[in-house]
């Protein structure tokens, strides 16, 4: 019998498996793909400071570094957020194909067992208090027993639903995304770029994250509840207008949960982490670091639960408390901000951008930019003031 079976070897699952194994638990990491990390479903941008807390940086999976961001309002008004001093890069653009595999190998190095090309298809509670996990490996069905199951099975998660946590996303709670890795385009590789507007990306944004000097992840997310066309059509229009010369060397599609914090990510014997728990940020769509944090918390709580032999939802709520009091607060805040932004027309977005355009905000964070906006537009944003100050 395993202490912990982790379902899904993304950043969340591999981190949970590593931490649990480091704490001496008997861990199995199950991944349905034959190759961890591919196909990629990500724009690969992370905050340098945040990721350095969870894994030692290895140049093998850093594709680029950026010093700041440029945000464009519908009328082209530019907002700059950047470190002024050279050498002060604040963000990494990862190579997730390499990064995800690295994290899985760290879990294995810490002592976790791993199987790939194997899907978790079901769970059944056993009389002895453990659960039987149903697995399908290359068509062959078998089961393993576990005291705890950590569901890190990403946006298409089933583990939550199997445990009675309804994580189904509505059409206003998921960004429908497409991205091209474009080569041969011109831009300043010191920055990440964001374009906003109801005409170009309803309910989302267009991004460009450098992956070197003349290649970048160029993508879009839209809310299906608001979009009039498919994201591909919006992105193709934008690329043709602004970057006609480049070549597409890779295509990525995906869905990002932007539901905001769920009520609970635990059930008896079960904890959900990362996209499976809808931990991605409703404003930025970023979910790598939150998934790793959640994996860290879940792995630690699993160790405590095994020591006390208590796998009840009541005990596992400790994990809920940890993530809710950490990034859960930001998810909550940014969900409210998202609702507010979704109601704004392009004219209002232009007005807001103009109010703070022209000087460098110095720091790259949602909080920083919103605080500045509130300062200049107190009447328009009075209702979210208390969340940010």
């Amino acid at each position, binding site marked *: 019998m395993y202490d912990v079976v982790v379902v899904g070897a993304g950043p969340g699952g591999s981190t949970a498996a590593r931490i649990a194994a480091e704490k001496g638990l008997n861990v199995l990491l199950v991944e*349905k*793909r*034959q190759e961890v990390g591919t*196909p990629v*479903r990500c724009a690969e941008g992370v905050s340098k400071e945040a990721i350095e807390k969870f894994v030692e940086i290895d140049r093998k999976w850093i594709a680029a570094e950026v010093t700041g961001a440029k945000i464009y309002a519908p009328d082209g008004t530019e907002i700059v957020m950047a470190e002024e001093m050279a050498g002060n890069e604040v963000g990494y653009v990862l190579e997730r194909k390499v990064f995800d595999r690295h994290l899985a190998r760290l879990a294995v190095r810490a002592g976790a067992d791993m199987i790939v*090309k194997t*899907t978790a298809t079901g769970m059944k509670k056993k009389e002895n208090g453990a659960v039987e996990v149903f697995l399908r490996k290359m068509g062959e069905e078998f089961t393993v027993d576990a005291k705890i199951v950590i569901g890190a099975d*990403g*946006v*298409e*998660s*089933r583990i939550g*639903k199997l445990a009675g946590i309804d994580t*189904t*996303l*509505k*059409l206003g709670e*998921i960004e*429908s*995304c*497409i991205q091209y890795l474009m080569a041969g385009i011109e831009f300043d590789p010191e920055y990440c770029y964001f374009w906003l507007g109801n005409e170009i990306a309803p309910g989302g944004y267009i991004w460009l994250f450098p992956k070197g000097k003349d290649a970048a992840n160029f993508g879009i997310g839209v809310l*299906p509840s608001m979009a009039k066309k*498919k*994201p*591909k059509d919006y992105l193709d229009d934008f690329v043709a207008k602004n970057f006609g010369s480049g070549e597409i060397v890779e*295509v*990525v*599609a*995906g*869905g990002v*949960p932007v539901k905001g914090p769920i009520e609970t990510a635990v059930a008896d014997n079960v904890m959900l982490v990362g996209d499976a728990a809808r931990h991605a940020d409703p404003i930025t769509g970023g979910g790598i670091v939150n998934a790793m944090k959640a994996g860290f918390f879940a792995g630690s709580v699993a160790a405590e639960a095994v020591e006390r032999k208590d796998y009840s939802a009541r005990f596992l709520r400790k994990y809920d408390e940890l993530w809710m009091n950490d990034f859960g607060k930001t998810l909550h805040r940014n969900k409210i901000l998202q609702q507010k932004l979704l109601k704004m027309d392009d004219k209002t977005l232009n007005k807001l951008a103009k109010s703070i355009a022209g000087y460098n905000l110095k720091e790259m964070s949602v909080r920083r930019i919103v605080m500045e906006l509130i300062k200049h537009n107190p009447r328009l944003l009075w209702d979210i003031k208390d969340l940010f100050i």
Partner: protein
Amino acid sequence: MARRRKPEKEKIFINRFRCAYCGACVAVCKFNANELIETFLIIDDEKCTLCKTCIKVCPMNALEIKEVA
């Protein structure tokens, strides 16, 4: 969950030349009627209610309702 009666002759058709196996359609199906096996999407026609939610979320325009011949 109440199931709508569905037309006998229709089903969701997956255009495999378009599908980019991203799993967005699985995330929104409240009837658990679809599953992504690595890069191969399957739909359980018994469970599918033809609610069209997956069609709307698909970034690749790979899903549509078609009449069964």
